[in-house]
């Protein structure tokens, strides 16, 4: 039981978590990750951000990632929402919320999904700073993060 949404309008992570909880009254534990747009990146003030994506493939990629998490851990429900288009500082970029009967599985499922989303889902960030526009570079630490999921058997 999962919901995936790519949204060009601002969304409320709290509302999404409420919807997740509402899906199943037996839910006992929810782990959620919220990524927010900061107004400062690499020392420069960021005025706004544009999030480009690959319509169709993005949804497919997110669905594959979520399905893999459901195969690997016993999850009750999951909700992934990712913003696209024009964003202002402090707006939510992404929510990953996972419910499970066991908190360890909820933590692992949630972290797995955001780790793979960061390296496998076709989104690209472009920032507008006081010095103009720039594409955000991918980070090596994100590639390292997914390696743990093939290395450890947990």
């Amino acid at each position: 039981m999962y919901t995936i949404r790519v949204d060009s309008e601002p969304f409320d992570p709290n509302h999404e978590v409420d919807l997740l909880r509402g899906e199943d009254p037996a839910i006992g534990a929810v782990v959620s990750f919220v990524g927010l747009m900061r107004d400062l990146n690499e020392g420069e003030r960021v005025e706004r951000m544009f999030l480009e994506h690959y319509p169709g493939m993005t949804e497919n990629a997110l669905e594959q990632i979520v399905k893999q998490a459901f195969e690997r851990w016993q999850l009750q429900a999951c909700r992934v929402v990712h913003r696209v288009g024009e964003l202002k500082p402090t707006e939510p970029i992404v929510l990953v919320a996972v419910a499970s009967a066991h908190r360890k599985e909820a933590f692992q499922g949630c972290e797995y999904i955001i780790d793979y989303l960061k390296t496998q889902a076709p989104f690209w960030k472009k920032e507008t700073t006081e010095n103009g526009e720039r594409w955000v570079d991918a980070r090596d630490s994100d590639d390292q993060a997914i390696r743990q999921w093939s290395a450890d058997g947990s």
Partner: protein
Amino acid sequence: MIQLRLFARFREELGVDSEQLASDELCCVEDLLNLLRQRGGAWSRLLAEDQRIMMAVNQEMANPQTPLHSGDEIALFPPVTGG
């Protein structure tokens, strides 16, 4: 024919969103990359061997060895930065 799609920095710097290409000589994504590199300029710079390039065939992540067929949609893009 195949359809080539470009995203983000690739799309901007190459000034191309998508284009149709004859697929007769293209067995795999690597062949397409080599063909595009021969165009020189920004093409050879952005798609150089030492550049990090991500690729998808029919909206699934692919690699240089992924085979190509007529009607396929191939996308080339820089490493993703969502989340």
